[in-house]
């Protein structure tokens, strides 16, 4: 080997080894950097990352309790739960919602209405973890998604309990419905310090008993400690605290009676409240038209909502509870009773009725042209003589009327166990002062008292108040607070918490007075304005017809049913209780824009009483009875 060449090789090797050495130092430096990083993460930041990993691992999953059932007094279910699969999106875990929904739609049918509902839920239910894009999946759809699940992080199938109202429209206002928890509900829940118990719950009672008895129905939420993966899906359950189911509500309502009553209305709008006088238990609580509460459970679609909300029939209003109507002539027996109690009248006192009452230069007409002739108190109720009450009202004055009528609970909330009750209007001088702002409007005119005395004018009461007052007469002046729930049942222990009948007020009426009024009311149904509707009744009953003006009539104008637009027609009313001697049921009926009470409302009452007292099944609405004695 040549020396120079060897030297060159040596030199070359030296330079190479130098570079290898430099590379080696670089490698050591790089590894030191890695080591520093690892020490930082695993020693210095260990606690932080350990906590992070723990949080990653265990998530507390609330377990929703089963919502309590709602049943009628004989155990018929009005609200129940059933299990179904929903396809739910966790919006927080999905980057592009629209894209995800589009991709889901390729596997599972997602309609435009599902999308709009989902959007609405997004806005309304802000706190919710997951929102359903589709509900009630078929087994096939569940399987289809399961196969593709890996493609959709943040989307999962959930087995959910759904609320169902098997009787649909029947008693819909009373039972109410549940709906998605919205921001206002969240506020309520926070105010009541129930946030923890509503974790995992996404529905809450919105109206009716579902709302009023929410705390009983909801139950206590359970918890599960679950190991989850990064997609939020449970892997393993570590511990479990079972939820406690909500309590069942057993109502005083008789659903078959309710059905008979609702059928009796036919296509008419209106309300009916039937009460057991001795307890205050509600037997029937009708508001027509109704709605299907099932529509609201998953979030109602906008089209149906629009329809329900803009309908002139106002199906969403619970007329029995929140509708207020002038009582018309059903007012008269209470005023008469009050006059007896105050000593302003005796049953025997008579007036002469020429068919009108002259007050200054205003003439208040009686329905019967030419008048009823000589009229005592009994006859004034039986034939519903207006003139008698024009005179009586004028003698009593507005404040006395208000005092008498107020005793029976008119114009005040009854305290029934469901929210949304209207107060109504019990007119008085004081009421008018408070109601109006301009001084000339605040003044009470004596002329106004005259029409108040026959149940018109400012008078406005709920059918519930009317039924309660009727029950007060039937119960000899002892008023029980009306209630809808008979008992609350704990399904675990079987324990039943009975709702004790509660006396709201004892009017301490003189027995001879109450007996007299009862006799007069019985006369209505045997020989008076209710006689046709109660012909051949197999039980004794008391009743009173009423017709409430919707538009005020001009002086000397005769009310012509045919000429008045349908919505401006009078409301037909009827109040009744039966049997006369030991009343089992008291009721009030309002049929909107149906004309005379004797013709439109009394037959409804008859069907309800027939069913309740005789067990008669009435399958078709009774034909309208044309009558010539509709002069209440």
């Amino acid at each position, binding site marked *: 080997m040549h020396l120079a060449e060897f030297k060159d090789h040596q030199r070359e090797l030296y330079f190479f080894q130098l570079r290898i050495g430099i590379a080696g130092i670089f490698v050591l430096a790089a*590894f030191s950097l890695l080591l520093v990083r*690892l*020490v930082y993460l695993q020693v210095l930041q260990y606690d932080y*990352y350990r906590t992070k*990993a723990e949080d990653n691992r265990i998530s507390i999953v609330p377990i929703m309790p089963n919502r309590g059932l709602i049943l009628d007094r004989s155990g018929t279910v009005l609200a129940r739960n059933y299990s179904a699969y929903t396809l739910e999106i966790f919006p927080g*875990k999905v980057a592009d919602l629209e894209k995800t929904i589009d991709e889901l739609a390729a596997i599972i049918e997602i309609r435009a209405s599902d999308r709009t509902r989902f959007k609405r839920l997004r806005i309304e239910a802000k706190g919710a973890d997951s929102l359903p894009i589709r509900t009630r999946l078929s087994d096939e759809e569940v399987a289809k998604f399961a196969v593709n699940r890996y493609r959709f992080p943040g989307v999962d199938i959930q087995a959910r309990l759904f609320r169902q109202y098997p009787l649909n429209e029947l008693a819909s206002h009373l039972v109410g419905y549940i709906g998605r928890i919205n921001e206002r509900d969240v506020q309520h829940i926070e105010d009541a310090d129930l946030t923890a118990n509503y974790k995992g719950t996404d529905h809450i009672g919105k109206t009716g008993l579902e709302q009023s008895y929410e705390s009983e129905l909801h139950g206590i939420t359970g918890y599960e400690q679950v190991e989850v993966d990064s997609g939020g899906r449970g892997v393993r359950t570590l511990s479990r605290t079972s939820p406690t189911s909500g309590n069942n509500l057993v109502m005083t309502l008789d659903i078959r009676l309710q059905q008979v009553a609702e059928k009796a209305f036919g296509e008419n709008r209106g309300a009916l409240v039937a009460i057991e006088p001795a307890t205050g238990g509600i037997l029937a609580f009708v508001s027509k038209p109704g709605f299907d509460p099932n529509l609201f459970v998953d979030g109602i679609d906008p089209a149906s909502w629009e329809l329900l909300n803009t309908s002139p029939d106002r199906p969403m209003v619970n007329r029995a509870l929140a509708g207020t109507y002038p009582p018309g002539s059903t007012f008269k027996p209470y005023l008469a009773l009050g006059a007896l109690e105050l000593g302003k009248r005796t049953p025997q006192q008579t007036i002469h009725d020429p068919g009108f009452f002259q007050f200054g230069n205003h003439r208040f007409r009686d329905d019967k042209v030419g008048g009823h002739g000589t009229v005592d108190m009994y006859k004034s109720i039986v034939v519903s003589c207006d003139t008698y009450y024009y005179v009586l009202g004028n003698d009593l004055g507005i404040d006395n009327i208000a005092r008498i009528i107020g005793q029976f609970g008119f114009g005040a909330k009854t305290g029934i166990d469901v929210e949304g009750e209207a107060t109504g209007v019990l007119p008085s001088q004081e009421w008018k002062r408070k109601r109006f702002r301009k001084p000339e409007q605040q003044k009470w005119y004596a002329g106004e008292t005259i029409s108040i005395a026959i149940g018109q004018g400012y008078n406005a009461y709920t059918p519930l108040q009317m039924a309660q007052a009727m029950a007060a007469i039937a119960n000899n002046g002892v008023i029980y607070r009306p209630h809808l729930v008979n008992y609350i049942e704990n399904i675990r222990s079987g324990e039943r918490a009975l709702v004790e009948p509660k006396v709201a007020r004892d009017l301490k009426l003189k027995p001879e007075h109450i007996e007299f009024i009862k006799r007069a009311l019985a006369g209505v149904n045997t020989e008076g304005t209710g006689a046709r509707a109660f012909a051949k009744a197999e039980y004794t009953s008391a009743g009173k017809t009423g017709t409430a003006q919707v538009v005020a009539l001009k002086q000397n104008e005769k009310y012509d049913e045919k000429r008045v637009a349908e919505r401006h027609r009078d409301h037909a009313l009827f109040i009744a209780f039966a049997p006369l001697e030991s009343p089992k049921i008291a009721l009030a009926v309002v049929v909107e824009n149906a004309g005379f009470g004797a013709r439109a409302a009394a037959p409804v009452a008859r069907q309800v009483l027939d069913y309740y007292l005789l067990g008669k099944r009435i399958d078709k609405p009774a034909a309208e009875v044309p009558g010539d004695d509709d002069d209440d």
Partner: protein
Amino acid sequence: MIRTLWLRFIDKIDAPLFALAFALLLLGIITLASAAHETPSRVAGQAASILVALGVMWAVAQFQPQTLMRFALPTYALGLALLVAVALFGDVVNGARRWLNVGLTRIQPSEIMKIAMPLMLAWYFHKHEATLRLRDYFVASLLLAAPVLLIARQPDLGTALLVTAAGFYVIFLAGLAWKILIGLALAACASLPFLWSLMHDYQRRRILTLLDPTSDPLGAGYHIIQSVIAVGSGGLAGKGWLKGTQAHLEFIPERSTDFIFAVFSEEFGLIGNCLLLLLYLLLIGRGLTIAANAPTFFARLLAGSVTLTFFTYVFVNVGMVSGILPVVGVPLPLVSFGGTALVTLFLGIGILMSIHRHRKLVQT
């Protein structure tokens, strides 16, 4: 007789190199058993790949470096041709055009380049050893740039990076002047904005995410956040084998391949990491020693480049998983699941063994 055969059989096998590689393989299999607990078939699959890879290593170790030199140009040319073919007719998998369908199976030509590149450049410099001029470094750069651009276009940033590293190490070890190296480094810094504009959105996002992973915890930052949590929560001694919650609850993505270090770290802690890094360091040290003592320019350059590329795998992978480097597709050598990478890596180890065992034959 059998003993003699056995000695003949293992004659070309470098014991320290083999022991270190074997130890790493063992750690890899143990970690994989935990990472892929839901798909146990992966462990068996990896074991099979190891056998194939060891076979490849043994075979390569039998060659004389001169023989290897003869492969340089053909493998490089084939690799380049295949990369062009991929660019034209390749199959798209996960949005990247990396695979070439060759009837029976699909191959990833970029993988060939990891070996072909140092072979080619080492051969080129060896050929011009006596008359090395600046022009030769320039030609070498072009030889490097062409396949790298094709690979980066696929896009496969991880492989492009490794091939670039392999090529660069050869050029560096061949003695490129320091002032040019510094100039190149400055030029590289200057061209960063240009590179940025060439990058795909997801690549940019990965780099941005590295700076602030929490900016997108459910998106691109997710990989980093979860793997860093896994590493950090491992602590000093780790959570124990099969007890890594991050791994077993599927918080770590790609946990049996590119992110297997997170699983290892979580279960074996800092102590395990030190052992792992030490094994790598020893292996690299052995490789560099082999390079330093290699008889020919070709052998030195090749051994040095292969060893330093191996280091690059480790550094980029661990750096990525521990959150100091952006996420690129580089496996943890000898540990990550994946047959192709394993074969490539053992090919490199085989080359090192070949160089080491044949050093005296050339010298004399």
